[in-house]
């Protein structure tokens, strides 16, 4: 059953209240973020339909938005998603080597997920960390000034966290 908890429903109401009466559709992007976080890291069709119901809009209005923005995952992703920026400034600073190293280390190419479902590798376009390149987004935060050693440490950290949470 896809339903937000009471706590999250309170958050939903708080978000909707930010906009004028009748303009609740404005809450769509924040609600999709919340839904993705809550329901397994991606937006399955029933999840999008649930968000449509909450906002009293047609499901198509949710689908067209979910498919437009790159942060909404339309298929399952690993527990930890490495999004490595590879636009100009990061490329200059060696982003391609970082992508290649992660591929070598985890055996996955950009767009793929490890068989254990732990890691997804993605390339990303400019994340606004050009002065701290090469870098990647991991969950809510940025990991910057990446080196092979740092990548190793991040992978270990993720594995430890995953083991601790099981």
């Amino acid at each position, binding site marked *: 059953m896809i339903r937000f908890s009471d706590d999250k429903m309170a958050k939903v109401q708080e978000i909707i209240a*930010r906009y004028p009466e009748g303009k609740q559709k*404005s809450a769509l992007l924040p609600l999709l973020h919340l839904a993705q976080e809550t329901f397994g890291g991606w937006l399955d069709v029933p999840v999008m339909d649930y968000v449509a119901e909450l906002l009293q809009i047609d499901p198509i209005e949710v689908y067209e938005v979910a498919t437009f923005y790159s942060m909404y995952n339309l298929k399952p992703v690993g527990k930890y998603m490495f999004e490595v920026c590879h636009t100009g400034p990061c490329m*200059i600073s060696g982003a391609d080597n970082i992508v290649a190293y992660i591929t070598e280390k985890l055996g996955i190419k950009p767009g793929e997920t490890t068989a254990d479902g732990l890691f997804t590798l993605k390339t990303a376009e400019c994340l*606004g960390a050009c002065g701290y390149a090469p870098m990647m987004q991991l969950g809510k935060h940025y990991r910057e000034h990446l080196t092979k050693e740092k990548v190793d440490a991040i992978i270990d950290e993720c594995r430890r966290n995953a083991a601790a949470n099981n």
Partner: protein
Amino acid sequence: MGVKLLLEKAHVEGIRTYEVYRREGGYRAVEKALKTMGPDAVVEEVKKSGLRGRGGAGFPAGMKWSFIAKPEGVPRHLVCNADESEPGTFKDRYLMEFLPHLLIEGLIVSSFALGSNATYIYIRGEYAWIPDILEQAIAEAKANGWLGKNILGTGFDLEIYVQRGAGAYICGEETALIESLEGKRGNPRIKPPFPAIKGVWERPTVVNNVETLAAVVPIINMGGDEYAKIGVGKSTGTKLISACGNINKPGVYEIDMTISVEEFIYSDEYCGGIANGKRLKACIPGGSSVPILPANLLLKTAKGETRYMNYESLSDGGFATGSMMGSGGFIVLDEDQSVVRNTYTLARFYRHESCGQCSPCREGTGWMEKLLKRLLEGKGKITDIDLLWDIQRKIEGNTICPLGDAAAWPIAAAIRHFRDEFEWYVTNPEESQRRNYGLAHYADPREVVA
């Protein structure tokens, strides 16, 4: 040391908290504006300051404010554009992360000037940790009476909300941002009507960049005339520059716009010179959309005059021999970098970020990416270079929003100034896969002189 108006307190310990920010003189601009000035007087000060929009277009902020329509009984809104996504640009992130109260203070004063009772900060979704910092600052400001109902007993009400985007460069374009804020795809609107007449929810709206709104604080504190004395010509006040690429000290710098490009790159106060003892090859001085310049045209204009870090000087010579201040994203390439490869990554970026609404941009950005990939892999033909030129020309000016121009300009400039490097990839298909073209005749003029 240059004048610092925005980052002066950035290194004060605890400046992110309300107590420290207030102790350091914060929220004085709100007191002054709300208690001693009317909304129109605030607009007037911003006009006098000569402040130009810091997001990239450089349009005078005070004039933009004066366009806002005031129909009876229709609410108006201020929207803060924190969608910072232009490659090379990371200055707004720095301001929001380290000086959140400066932005909130700027938003209160600006909302008062424009008559907005509900102001929205639209921040790019990837800056996922920053909304917490901003919301904390908003809560502190509210707890201390700077937000909410009847602020300072003046009858002015204001709430500020933070909205996250979800990964779309196009939402930095103001009408796409408005669409996104309404819960839609970020497809730019046809103008007119301009947002000042019909913006979010068809209400009069002003959209301003983070840095622009933060700059309103020193303008109110010191007065527009004093602010306008800093800088030169129509480049008044200070500008944040985010510097990256092959330099010793990448980071965010506040400059007054009287320093030369050479000083900015080589002095220890700023970029600290080219990293690893390499030589300067080229630079994109204002974010990925602006024309790339070879070292000789970067440090000196075509007339042989010193080039300065300001709006006028950076654009001296037009697109033939100049560039633009843009967003202040300063990307430096050393002698080992390939202009073809750099241009390819930017073409890929624009293809990825095109919203798909206008055919020239949707189709053209894809064709340009493919042609550049072919050239980069040593599989291109000389005619591909002409074809690239032709495509970019047919995109420019033929789209609803400026993303088309932004995709076209970097390619045009790369071919204009580095055509022999593109040709080298065609005529030396094997060698080009093993080594970079190097400096050719684009060397730093300082060495030529020596």
